[in-house]
C-alpha cells in the first residue's frame, strides 16, 4: 500500500478523483474465491455423431471461410463427408442445441458443402508410401470396411480390401439409390481411399472364391460383409413367381441392370429399403404401394425419406399385414389382415395386433418383400460368436478369435452408414492397439466423445490437441442473449416431375453464401470461437490477448473471480471453479 495522499491546496489536486500512481501494485487477484478458466466442453452434436465428427470445429472453419480447413477436420474422422452429407440420418441435428432456440443447424448440408467444394477444386490427395510391417485384410468394402481401411492406411499399415462385387462400396453402391447418392460422389471418395495405398480386390466372395485360409498371411482381419440376406415373411406363396426381395431388386436397379416389373407393385415393409425400393420403382414409371403392419409413427425409415416418397406418389397403407400370396392369371392376390396397435413391445413401439376376420385382398403384378435384412453366417470363421442375429464383438470390435475384428451391419443392429463408418474407425484403432500391445478398451475409453459411444481417432493420434471435457453442453447452459433467431438454410430439391424422370439426385448442395450463413448460426456449444465477449466484459482487464487474438488465458494477478466472463460466455467455454483454500 502506498501512503495516503495529502493535498495542501485545491490547485494541486487532479480534476477528477483518479489515482495518482499506477495501480499495478494492487494484485486484486488475491481477493479471488473462484477461478475462471477456458475449458472446451463437448457439444451435443459430436456426441450424437456415430462417426465422431468434430462438428463445431469444422463449422467454425466454414464460418472463417476456410473450407480447406473444414475439409481437413472432417477427414480426421471420416473418409466419406460427401456421402454422409447426403445419406446420413444426421442424429447430430436432432441433438443440436439450436433446435431449442429456433431450428437446428443444417449440419449435413454443411458437411456436404465442404466435400463438394473441395471436390470441385480437384484437390490432389496426399499419397502415403511408408508402410508398417503388419498387413491387414478387410473383407467387405462397404462403409465399415473402407472406413477401417482408410484409418489403418493413415496409421501406415498396408491394407487389402476384398469385395465380392465388381465395384467397391458395398451397400453404398448396391443399396442406396443414386438419386440419394450419385455414383460420382461415391467413386471419388473411394478413390481418395485408394490413393492412400489401400488395395481393393474386386470379385472376391468370402466362402466362394475367397477362403479364410487365403487370409492367413495377414496379421489381422476385419470382417464387414454386412447383412445382405433379405428376411423372409414366412407366409405361404412367398416363393412364387413375380415375388422378389427388396435388396436384390435395389441392387439390380442401382447397377443399372434391366428389371422386369409390371405396372402395379406392392412393397412390403416400413424400413429404408422398402422406401428406397418404392421410390426407385416410381422412377421406373410404375405405381408403388407400400404395406406396413404398424402405423406411420412406428415406421423405422427416416422421416425425410418418407416425406419425399409421399411427394413422389408412393401410396402408403398402414396397419396391414400380408398373410398369404395367391397367384391368379399372372396377377398376385395378396391376402392381408388389418391390424391395430396394442401394447408396447421390447423395441418400445406399439405391437401390431391382427383384427380377427378383417381379411382383404390386394391385386398387384409384383410384390417386393423388404422386411429387413439378416446376416449370412455360413461363410464366417468357425468359432465366431453370435448373439441376437449378429456377430458378437467386444467394445473394441474384436471377436472371440485373436486378430479377427468385425464391424458394420454384421455386428450391429444400428444399421446406418454412420454407425458403419464409426465401427470401422474403432476397429482400426483396436487393430493398431493390438499390434502395439496396448489395451484397446482403455484406449477407446480415452477417446470417447462425451460418454460415448462416439469416439474420436484424432484424439487417439493427438492426445494433447483440442482437449475437450466430456461434459455435454445443454441448452440451458448457453447464454442465448447473444443469439438472434435466424432461419435454417435449406438445400433446394428438384421438382417431383423432374425426379420421376430418372435417377438424378434430388437435393442440391448449398451455395457458398448459404453455407456461410448457416455456419454463422452455429452456437459453437462448449467451444471457444474467440468471440471476445469475455475480453469485453472483464472489469479487471484480465483476459489476455496475444497480439490481436484472444489467448484464452486469464491474468490471475488481477482476476477477482467475479465470474462475469463465465456468465457472459455465450457458449459455455469457460469454467468457474471454487479456489482451493
Amino acid at each position: 500500500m502506498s501512503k495516503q495522499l495529502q493535498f495542501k491546496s485545491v490547485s494541486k489536486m487532479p480534476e477528477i478523483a483518479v489515482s495518482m500512481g499506477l495501480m499495478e501494485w494492487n494484485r486484486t487477484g488475491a481477493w479471488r474465491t473462484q477461478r475462471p478458466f477456458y475449458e472446451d466442453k463437448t457439444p451435443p452434436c459430436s456426441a450424437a455423431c456415430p462417426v465422431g465428427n468434430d462438428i463445431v470445429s469444422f463449422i467454425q472453419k466454414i464460418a472463417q471461410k476456410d473450407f480447406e480447413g473444414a475439409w481437413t477436420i472432417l477427414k480426421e474422422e471420416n473418409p466419406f463427408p460427401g456421402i454422409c452429407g447426403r445419406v446420413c440420418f444426421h442424429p447430430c441435428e436432432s441433438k443440436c442445441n439450436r433446435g431449442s432456440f429456433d431450428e437446428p443447424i443444417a449440419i449435413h448440408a454443411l458437411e456436404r458443402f465442404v466435400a463438394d467444394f473441395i471436390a470441385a477444386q480437384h484437390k490432389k490427395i496426399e499419397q502415403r508410401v511408408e508402410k508398417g510391417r503388419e498387413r491387414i485384410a478387410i473383407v467387405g468394402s462397404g462403409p465399415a470396411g473402407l472406413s477401417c481401411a482408410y484409418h489403418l492406411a493413415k496409421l501406415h499399415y498396408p491394407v487389402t480390401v476384398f469385395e465380392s462385387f465388381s465395384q467397391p462400396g458395398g451397400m453404398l453402391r448396391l443399396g442406396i439409390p443414386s438419386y440419394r447418392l450419385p455414383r460420382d460422389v461415391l467413386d471419388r471418395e473411394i478413390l481418395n481411399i485408394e490413393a492412400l495405398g489401400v488395395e481393393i480386390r474386386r470379385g472376391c466372395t468370402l466362402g466362394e472364391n475367397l477362403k479364410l485360409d487365403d487370409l492367413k498371411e495377414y496379421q489381422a482381419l476385419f470382417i464387414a460383409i454386412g447383412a445382405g440376406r433379405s428376411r423372409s415373411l414366412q407366409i405361404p406363396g412367398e416363393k412364387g413367381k413375380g415375388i422378389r426381395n427388396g435388396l436384390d431388386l435395389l441392387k439390380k436397379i442401382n447397377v443399372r441392370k434391366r428389371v422386369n416389373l409390371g405396372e402395379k407393385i406392392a412393397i412390403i415393409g416400413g424400413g429404408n429399403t422398402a422406401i428406397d425400393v418404392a421410390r426407385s420403382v416410381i422412377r421406373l414409371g410404375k405405381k408403388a404401394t407400400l404395406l406396413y403392419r404398424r402405423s406411420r409413427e412406428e415406421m423405422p425409415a427416416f422421416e425425410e425419406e418418407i416425406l419425399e416418397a409421399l411427394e413422389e406418389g408412393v401410396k402408403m397403407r398402414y396397419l396391414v399385414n400380408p398373410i398369404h400370396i395367391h397367384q391368379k392369371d399372372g396377377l398376385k392376390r395378396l391376402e392381408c389382415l388389418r391390424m391395430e396397435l396394442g401394447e408396447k413391445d421390447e423395441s418400445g413401439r406399439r405391437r401390431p395386433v391382427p383384427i380377427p376376420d378383417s381379411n382383404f385382398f390386394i391385386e398387384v403384378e409384383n410384390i417386393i418383400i423388404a422386411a429387413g435384412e439378416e446376416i449370412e453366417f455360413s461363410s464366417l470363421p468357425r468359432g465366431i460368436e453370435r448373439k441376437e442375429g449378429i456377430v458378437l464383438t467386444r467394445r473394441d470390435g474384436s471377436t472371440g478369435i485373436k486378430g479377427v475384428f468385425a464391424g458394420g451391419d454384421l455386428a450391429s443392429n444400428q444399421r446406418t452408414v454412420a454407425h458403419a463408418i464409426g465401427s470401422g474407425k474403432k476397429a482400426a484403432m483396436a487393430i493398431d492397439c493390438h499390434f502395439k500391445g496396448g489395451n484397446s478398451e482403455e484406449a477407446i475409453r480415452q477417446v470417447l466423445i462425451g460418454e460415448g459411444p462416439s469416439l474420436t481417432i484424432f484424439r487417439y493420434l493427438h492426445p494433447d490437441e483440442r482437449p475437450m471435457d466430456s461434459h455435454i453442453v445443454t441448452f440451458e447452459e448457453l447464454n442465448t442473449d447473444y443469439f438472434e433467431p435466424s432461419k435454417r438454410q435449406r438445400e433446394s430439391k428438384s421438382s417431383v416431375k423432374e425426379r420421376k424422370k430418372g435417377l438424378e439426385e434430388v437435393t442440391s448442395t448449398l451455395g457458398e453464401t448459404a453455407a456461410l450463413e448457416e455456419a454463422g448460426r452455429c452456437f459453437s456449444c462448449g467451444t471457444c470461437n474467440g468471440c471476445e465477449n469475455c475480453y469485453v466484459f472483464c472489469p479487471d482487464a484480465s483476459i489476455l490477448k496475444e497480439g490481436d487474438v484472444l489467448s484464452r488465458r486469464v491474468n490471475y494477478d488481477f482476476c477477482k473471480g467475479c465470474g462475469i466472463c463465465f456468465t457472459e460466455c455465450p457458449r459455455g467455454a469457460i469454467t468457474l471453479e471454487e479456489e482451493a483454500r
Partner: protein
Amino acid sequence: MKRVITGNQAVAYGVILSRVEVISAYPITPQTTIVEELSELIASGRLNTRFLKVESEHSAMAALVGASTGGARTFTATSSHGLAYMHEMLHWASGARLPIVLVNVNRALGPPWNIWSDQSDSLSQRDTGWIQLYCENNQEVLDTILQAYRIAETVRLPVMIVLDAFVLSHTSEPVEVPGMEEVDPFLPPYCPDYPMDTQEPRSYSVIATPEHFFEFRYKIQRAMEEVPGVAKKVDDEFRARFGRGYGAIERYGKEEAEVLLMTSGTVTSTSRIVVKKLMEKGLSVAGIKIKRFRPFPSEEIFEAIKGAKKLAVIDRNLSAGVGGIFTQELRASLYSREERPPVFGFISGLGGRDITPELIEEAVQYTLDHHRPEEEILWLGLKR
C-alpha cells in the same frame, strides 16, 4: 443543405455531425424517434458508432459514464420518467467530470399519466451539476448539439439539451443542416485528460475522504463559472462559421421597455409575436428568451433588464410549495442587486396545455396594470 425535419431528426443530425462514438439509450416517448433514426443509421452501416441497447435509463447513463471515461464522445436521449430514473447517474457523470451530451425532450412526470410538454423533468435535475440549455426551434436544437460538445469538452462538465415535446420533437421545420466538412474544423475530436490505458492502469472515481471531497465540489463550481465565457466564445465562433448564434439569453422588442417578459423553450416564439403586436399598440414591452438555465445567466440578465420597471416570467413547471422555478432563480439572482424590479411569476401550460398568444397577452397586460403581483403565483389559463 436545408431540410424539413422534426426536432428529433434535428437531434439525430446533430449527433451524426458531432461524430459521436458511443450512443446508449432506452426508448421512451416522445424522444423515441431520435434513437430510432440513429440506430437505423448504425444498423445500415452508414454511421460508425457503437449503439448500446440497455435495459433502463439508469444503465444508459452508466454505460456512457464508462464509455466517456474510456475517451469516447458519447450521447443519449431521454424524457420524463426516463430522465428521473437516470438521476443517480447524472450526478455521477458530473462528479466524474465527463463531457456527456444528453438530449431531453421536455415532458411532464406522472401521475396523472401525461406525455406532453412540461419542464418539470429537466428542472427536477437542476442540482445534478449538469449544464442545461433550452431550445426554441429545430435549427437551434441541431446547432446547440454541436456547440454543446465544444463547451462540455472544454469545461469537462456534461450538458443537457432540452426541447419541447411534440411542439419541437414531432413538428417539422426547415433546418439548415451543415456538412460534415464544415463541422469537423469546428468540433475537433475529444481527448480525455486522464485516458484509460490497460498498460498503465489507474483507479477512477476513487473514494475521497472529507479531506478532499469538498475541493472536488469546489472545482465543479469553478468549472460552472467558466461556462459563460467558454459558451460565448464557442457561440461567437459558431456564428462566424455558420452565420447563426444564440447567446445565453436573447433580448427582443422595445429598447427601453417598462415590462420585460421572460420565457424559455417554444413559448418564446409565441411571445415574440405577442410582444411585437403590443409594441405596435404602443405598449412599452420587450422579451427575454432564456436559453441557458445552468449555470444561471445572472450577469447577462442584469445587463438586459437595466431600466426595466417590472419583470414577468412564464414558467411551464411547478415546484409545489414555492412556484415557478425560473421565477425563483430570477428572484434569487436579483436579491444581491441594487436594482431589483418586482418579479411577476406566472405558471401556465402544465402537462402540455397550449400557452396561447391570448394568455401571454393577458400576462403582459396584468404586469402593466399592477404595481406589484397580488399573489406569489399567478395562474395563467387555469380553469378556476
